[in-house]
């Protein structure tokens, strides 16, 4: 994916084309709508809560997209970084009284450090072996989190000491504040993704994704590039983990490190379009509709786990039927119409 949803025609640098202006307009309108949601007459906590969940989903998808979509390294162990963000922030607050406003960054730094260690071991491996190694690391973290319950709360997990509405420690009874915070995070992550798709580091990273040997022969330090991308992706995932913790006020080993979590992190980018800036946003929005729908279905039927079943089916359908995601599909259609072949590549 050459990236963004910009028009096919070459545009001189610095002069956005008409299509880009139009997209910018849509984008601003969408952000304004989400930000002003609480002011709308029909808005209630339930609706706002759903949007917050969607935004957290999107943020996670954006973070995973950095290493998997733009960097081409299929990490199945991002639950580790998500969990470190959530557990790290929670433990720093519960045990040391450190406000999550600070704890989030400490936890992100911790996740980044762990990412460097994991990367240092696993980036000797390519493709599927890297993916398998990350699965195993994630499993190990789940087992350890369940066992050392004095630290983590074991199977039941960690509950944040709730003080009611207390902005100083990132706690509110009502979801509005989370709406704005997570919207800001999504926007910031979007900016990071755009920078990666266009900027120097991102070009090198995409080169590594497309062909490691060729990247080496272009002077790119492949190992370091992959490590930095994983570090960035891990820190972003941990920040999203903090958001998750503060919004739900609890975290447990299954939610943090389990297989279904690892898949939930991947789905937004896979559905929307791997390696694109807009993909995780579209995919995350679709995910939340899916998840709400199945939640309603499972409570009606009195069955637990319908949502996970739906995730599995969606994942299977995407991999088999639409491996480039929605944006990739649109882009290839558009290129076909303008008589150009679709650019090769993507997240393989």
């Amino acid at each position, binding site marked *: 994916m050459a990236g963004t949803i910009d028009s096919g025609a*070459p545009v001189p640098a610095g002069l956005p084309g008409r299509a880009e202006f139009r997209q910018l307009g849509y984008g601003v309108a969408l952000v304004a709508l989400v930000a002003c949601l609480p002011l709308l007459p029909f808005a209630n906590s339930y609706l706002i809560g759903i949007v917050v969940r969607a935004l957290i989903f999107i943020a996670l998808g954006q973070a995973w997209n950095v290493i998997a979509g733009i960097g081409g390294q299929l990490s199945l162990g991002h639950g580790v970084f998500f969990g470190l963000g959530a557990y790290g922030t929670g433990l720093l607050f519960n045990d040391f009284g450190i406000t999550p406003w600070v704890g989030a960054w400490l936890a992100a730094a911790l996740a980044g450090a762990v990412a460097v260690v994991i990367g240092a071991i696993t980036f000797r491996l390519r493709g599927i072996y890297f993916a398998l190694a990350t699965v195993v690391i994630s499993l190990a973290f789940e087992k350890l989190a369940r066992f050392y319950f004095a630290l983590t709360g074991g199977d039941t997990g960690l509950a944040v000491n709730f003080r009611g509405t207390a902005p100083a420690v990132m706690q509110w009874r009502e979801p509005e504040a989370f709406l704005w915070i997570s919207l800001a995070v999504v926007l910031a992550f979007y900016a990071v993704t755009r920078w990666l798709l266009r900027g120097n580091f991102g*070009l090198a990273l995409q080169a590594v994704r497309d062909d490691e040997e*060729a990247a*080496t022969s*272009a*002077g790119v330090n492949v190992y370091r590039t992959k490590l930095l991308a994983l570090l960035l992706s891990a820190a972003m995932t941990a920040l999203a983990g903090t958001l998750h913790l503060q919004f739900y006020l609890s975290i447990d080993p299954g939610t943090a490190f389990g297989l279904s979590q690892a898949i939930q992190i991947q789905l937004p980018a896979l559905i929307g379009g791997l390696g694109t800036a807009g993909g995780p946003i579209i995919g995350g929005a679709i995910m939340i509709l899916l998840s709400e729908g199945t939640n309603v279905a499972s409570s009606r039927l009195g069955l637990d786990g319908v949502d996970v079943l739906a995730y599995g089916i969606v994942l299977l359908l995407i991999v088999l039927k639409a491996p480039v995601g929605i944006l990739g599909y649109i882009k290839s259609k558009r290129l076909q119409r303008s008589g150009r072949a679709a650019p090769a590549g993507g997240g393989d």
Partner: protein
Amino acid sequence: MARNPAVLEVTSVHRKFGGLQALSDVSFAVEQQEVVGLIGPNGAGKSTLFEVISGNIPPSSGAIAFHGDDVTRMAAFRRRRSGLCRTFQKIRLFGALTVAQNVAVAAQQCVVDGNWRDEVASALAKLRLTAQADRYPSEITLPDRKKVEIARAIVGRCRVLMLDECLSGLTRDEADEVVQEILGLNRQGLTIIVVEHVMPVVMAMAQRLVVLQHGCVIADGPPKEVAANPVVIEAYLGARHRPAP
């Protein structure tokens, strides 16, 4: 050797893969602004030698010096940054990046002084690719893709350009076009090593030939001399007359 110091010096390089001796005691030197052809029948060790020089395969023993510095243990990407550049036999462009971005990846890493954007523009201009700058590799012709590979290899600091069978898959006219570009780069001062197993192509380009067989250098000299060398004739004719495995 006295008139011109060697740019690249390969000294008794050996390489073993398991029980197979792919390179044994290979030594040769390349001088400033030379075009050296590295030839030999299939399986002679050309590709292995190429990878050893560019740093993707470490030699079992021996040394490689580049501008007088020992680079035997230097990582491949650092060799590229210091000016030892290569292309691939099978085209390996970054499929999701445009032509300009393909060259820019290398420029960002390898331009030491000056603006890398200017260097990208000048590399594209040198190979007459400016009009294709914003196209994707899948949208341009095969000779143009070969030229993008070359542009990516020469952008920034490039002192030696190693071309791995860069004419394979091209028609005669297309090959001529690419050869002219390469010779043009050489006239501007670039040292070039061409790996080929098709003799006539190299004969036309190279000022000197190094011939490999069974991992050993069996001849090293001006093309005419090498072509008349009975050992070389035997190696090529022998290989040609034997049925392919």
